[in-house]
C-alpha cells in the first residue's frame, strides 16, 4: 500500500516539496528485490533534517546493502500534520510513500532532547504505540542513535534498540542478524536477544530499574542472561578507511545548511567541561588531508554545491587545515567555505579571508563565559587577549559583524561573571567601533558524561534574571543581544539527565499537544508543567538537584570509555579553577585507551 497526496492537499501546505521526495541523488530501489525496509525518521522539519550529515551517511550506508532499503521521513510541519490527521493519512516515507507501520525498522536520530515529543508524534501519526510493551510482533522495530543516545533512559520504554556509537561500526552486523533471524522465522524477541552480544547495542527491555525512597536509582539489573552488564560504545578506529558516501542528497528547496559537508575528524582534543560530545566522541580520530581532499572534490562534483562545510567538533584543531583549504580552493575556486566551529585562539588570517564571502559576512566565536575565572572552571582555555586578537583578525579581514556566543547559568557563576560578558562585548566593539557585535547567551544545561553531570542547573527564574541583566546592560546601538528560552533549557535539563520515569512525561506532553518544542514559537511550558504533574514527576529533582558522586546515575550502564573517576577528578579541578590541557599537549588519562595520544604526551 502506498499513500497518494492530492493536488489540493499539496497546494494547501507551505513548501509541498518537503513531502515529495525525488531529490537529487536519492535512492530508488525495486521493492521486489528488497528484504529489509528501514525508515530513517528525523524528528524535526525537513529543512533541518536534510542538513544533517548523519542522515546522509546512514542513508547511503544502509542503501549500499543490496537487500536493504533505507527511506526517509521527517516531522511534517503543523499545516501538513493537520491535513494528514483530517484525511487519515499516516506518516509515510518520501521515497515510495509507504506508511511508517509497514517498515521492518524505524530509526530515529536523537539530535537534541527537545525533539523527543516529535518522536512520539511521528509514531502517533504512523499509528504505532509509543510504548514498546504495547507494540505487537509485526510492528516495526524502533532503533535510535545519535548524540543524545548516551543517556537513553528517558526513551527506554519507547525504543527497542539503542545504538551507541558510530553508525558505521556494527549496523551491518545488526542487520545481518536480523535477516538471518527472519530467514529462520525467529520472533522479534529472539532477534533482540541475538544482538545482545554486539558492542554498542542496548536493548532496554532486558534491564530492570529499581528506585530508592528519595527517588534516586537503587539498582539497575539485567533480566536476561545474555545481556551485558555494561554497554560499551562502538567507534570506527580506522577512520580513513571508513565508509564515506560519494555523494549527498540535494533537496529541491533551500534547506537550513544548503551545502556539501566534509567531516574532518571525530572526537575532540579539548576537554570543555560542559560539552558532552567532547567526552562521548573520544578519542579524536582525524582523516588524512589527501583523503579529505579527494572526498571533498568528489562531493562537490556530485552535488554541484557552491558551498562546502568543513565540519568537526573544533575545525581549527585540524592541523593540516590550511593545506586542505588551499588545495580545495585550487580546484574549486568559486566554492564558499564554511567553518562552523572555529576557535578564536587558533584562527589565522588565511583561514578568515578564505571563509569570508559577501553573502554571509558574520563570524562567530564562542568564549562561552565572560570572565577568565569562569572560563577556567569550564576548561575553555582561551584568554581575553586571544579573544581580542581573534576579533582584530576578523575585522582586519573584512568582517564587520562578529557574533560572540556565551552560556549563562554555568556552575559557580556569580554576578561578576555576567557583568564580564557585557564588558567583554564592549571591549571587542572598541577594537572596531563601526562593527556590529551580536552577543548570544544560551542557558547552560548539564549533560550526562560531563564533569558537570552532578551539578544543579539554574532555575528558569535565575536564568531569566541573568538574561534580563544582559538585556539591560549589553544591548546598545552596536551590540545586539540574543538569548535562548530559559524555560525550554530547564525542560531540556530534565530530559538530558532524566531516568526511565521521564519517558511518561514526554508521552503525556505529546498527548497534551507538545511538538516542535525546540521552536520558540511552538514551545509551551504550561503543557510540560501539566505533563509532569500528570505523571507525578518533579522536574526540579532532575534539573536543579546537585547529585552526590556516589549516586547511581541513570546512564551508568553505558560505557563511553572515559572513566567516572576521570570525570570526578575534572569536577574537582573545576571547583579549584584548574585547567586541564588539551589531549595533544598533555594526556589527562581519561580512560579512552584506544587513542593516538593516550599516555604518550
Amino acid at each position, binding site marked *: 500500500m502506498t499513500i497518494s497526496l492530492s493536488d489540493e492537499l499539496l497546494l494547501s501546505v507551505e513548501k509541498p*516539496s518537503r513531502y*515529495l521526495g*525525488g*531529490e*537529487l541523488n536519492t535512492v530508488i530501489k525495486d521493492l521486489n528485490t528488497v528484504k529489509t525496509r528501514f525508515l530513517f525518521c528525523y524528528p524535526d522539519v525537513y529543512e533541518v533534517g536534510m542538513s544533517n550529515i548523519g542522515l546522509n551517511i546512514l542513508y547511503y550506508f544502509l542503501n549500499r546493502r543490496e537487500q536493504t532499503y533505507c527511506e526517509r521521513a521527517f516531522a511534517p510541519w503543523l499545516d501538513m500534520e493537520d491535513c494528514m490527521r483530517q484525511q487519515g493519512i499516516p506518516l509515510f516515507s518520501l521515497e515510495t510513500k509507504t506508511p511508517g507501520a509497514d517498515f521492518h525498522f524505524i530509526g530515529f536520530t536523537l539530535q537534541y532532547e527537545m525533539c523527543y515529543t516529535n518522536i512520539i508524534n511521528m509514531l502517533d501519526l504512523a499509528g504505532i504505540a509509543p510504548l514498546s510493551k504495547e507494540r505487537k510482533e509485526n510492528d516495526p522495530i524502533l532503533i535510535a542513535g545519535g548524540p543524545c543516545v548516551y543517556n537513553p533512559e528517558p526513551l527506554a520504554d519507547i525504543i527497542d534498540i539503542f545504538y551507541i556509537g558510530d553508525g558505521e561500526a556494527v549496523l551491518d552486523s545488526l542487520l545481518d542478524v536480523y535477516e538471518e533471524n527472519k530467514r529462520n522465522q525467529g520472533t522479534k524477541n529472539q532477534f533482540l536477544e541475538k544482538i545482545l552480544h554486539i558492542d554498542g547495542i542496548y536493548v532496554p527491555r532486558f534491564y530492570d530499574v529499581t528506585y530508592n525512597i528519595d527517588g534516586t536509582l537503587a539498582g539497575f539489573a539485567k533480566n536476561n542472561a545474555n545481556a551485558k552488564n555494561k554497554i560499551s560504545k562502538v567507534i570506527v578506529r580506522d577512520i580513513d578507511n571508513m565508509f564515506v558516501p560519494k555523494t549527498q542528497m540535494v533537496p*529541491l528547496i533551500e534547506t537550513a545548511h544548503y551545502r556539501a559537508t566534509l567531516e574532518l575528524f571525530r572526537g575532540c582534543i579539548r576537554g570543555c567541561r560542559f560539552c558532552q560530545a567532547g567526552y562521548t566522541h573520544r578519542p579524536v580520530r582525524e582523516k588524512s588531508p589527501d583523503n579529505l581532499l579527494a572526498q571533498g572534490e568528489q562531493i562537490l562534483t*556530485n552535488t554541484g554545491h557552491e558551498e562546502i562545510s568543513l565540519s568537526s567538533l573544533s575545525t581549527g584543531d585540524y592541523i593540516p587545515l590550511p593545506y586542505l583549504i588551499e588545495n580545495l580552493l585550487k580546484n574549486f575556486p568559486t566554492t564558499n567555505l564554511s567553518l562552523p566551529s572555529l576557535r578564536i585562539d587558533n584562527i589565522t588570517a588565511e583561514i578568515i579571508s578564505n571563509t569570508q564571502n*559577501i553573502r554571509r559576512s558574520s563570524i562567530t566565536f564562542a568564549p562561552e563565559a565572560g570572565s577568565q575565572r569562569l572560563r577556567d572552571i569550564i576548561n575553555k582555555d582561551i584568554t581575553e587577549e586571544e579573544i581580542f586578537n581573534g576579533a582584530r583578525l576578523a575585522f582586519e579581514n573584512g568582517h564587520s559583524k562578529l557574533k560572540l556566543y556565551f552560556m549563562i547559568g554555568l556552575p559557580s557563576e556569580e554576578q561578576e561573571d555576567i557583568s564580564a560578558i557585557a564588558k567583554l562585548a564592549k571591549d571587542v566593539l572598541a577594537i572596531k567601533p563601526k562593527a556590529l557585535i551580536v552577543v548570544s547567551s544560551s542557558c547552560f544545561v548539564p549533560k550526562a558524561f560531563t564533569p558537570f553531570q552532578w551539578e544543579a542547573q539554574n532555575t528558569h527564574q535565575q536564568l531569566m534574571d541573568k538574561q534580563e541583566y544582559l538585556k539591560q546592560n549589553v544591548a546598545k546601538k552596536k551590540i545586539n543581544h540574543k538569548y535562548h528560552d530559559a524555560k525550554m533549557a530547564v525542560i531540556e535539563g530534565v530530559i538530558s539527565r532524566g531516568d526511565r520515569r521521564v519517558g511518561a512525561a514526554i508521552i503525556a506532553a505529546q498527548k497534551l499537544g507538545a511538538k516542535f518544542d525546540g521552536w520558540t514559537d511552538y514551545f509551551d511550558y504550561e503543557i510540560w508543567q501539566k505533563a509532569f504533574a500528570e505523571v507525578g514527576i518533579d522536574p526540579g529533582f532532575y534539573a536543579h538537584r546537585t547529585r552526590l558522586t556516589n549516586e547511581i546515575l541513570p546512564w551508568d550502564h553505558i560505557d563511553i570509555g572515559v572513566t567516572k573517576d576521570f570525570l570526578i577528578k575534572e569536577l574537582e579541578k573545576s571547583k579549584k579553577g584548574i585547567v586541564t590541557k588539551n589531549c595533544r599537549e598533555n594526556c589527562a588519562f581519561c580512560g579512552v585507551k584506544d587513542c593516538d595520544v593516550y599516555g604518550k604526551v
Partner: protein
Amino acid sequence: MYMERYRLKFEKLGNMRFIGHLDTVALFQRCLKLAQLPISYSKGYHPRQEVAFALPLGLGIAGTGEFVDIQLDREILQSDIIDGLNAHFPIGIKIIGARQLEPNERIAPRIVIAAEYEIIVHKNIEPQIYELLNNEEVIVIKKSKSGEKPVNIRPLIFEATYENNKLRTVLATGERNLKPQLLMEYLMPGAENIYYTRTDILKEGLKSL
C-alpha cells in the same frame, strides 16, 4: 568570446509540478553544472549562469511544452545537451527538444505573448465556453497584493475549445495576463480536482517558441 545559444524544450510533470519557479531555476543551474556543459557566465562581480526561462509555471500546473534559453561558451551537439541534462534531472523534469538560436533571435522571455493550456474538468462546460466566447466583455474580480479589482478577461482569451471534459485554451501572458485558475474560477466557481497542463508557450502569431 564565441557564444552559442540554445532553446531547450522541457516537461515538468508529476511531483515536479510542486517545485516553485525559483527552485526550478536553481535546479536547472545545478544540473547544467552537474552535466558539465560549458555554460556561459555573466560578467561582473557576481557571475551568473546565462539561463533565461520563457515563462514561470504556476505551482501545481504540469508543463509539456516549457522553454528555457541557455548560452554556452562553445557549440555542443544538441543530443549531448539533452542527454547530459536528463541524466541529472529528477523524475518529472525532462528535456524533450533543443535547437540552436539564430544570432538575431531574441531571448524567450522577451517574445512570449501567450500560453496554451489543456484543462481537464469533471463536468461538461461546453455551454459556459460558448457563452464566454460570445461575450465581448467578461468581468471577473482579480485579487492581487494591492487589493481586488474588476478585470475584463475576454480580450485575454485568444482561443478556447472544449471536447470530452478537456478545455484547450490560449491565454495572454505578460503585463496583462490571465491565469488559467482565474478563468476556471469564472467558468466553474468553487470546482475542485481540475488538472492543468501548460502545453505550449507562444510568440507573435501565436506560434510556438
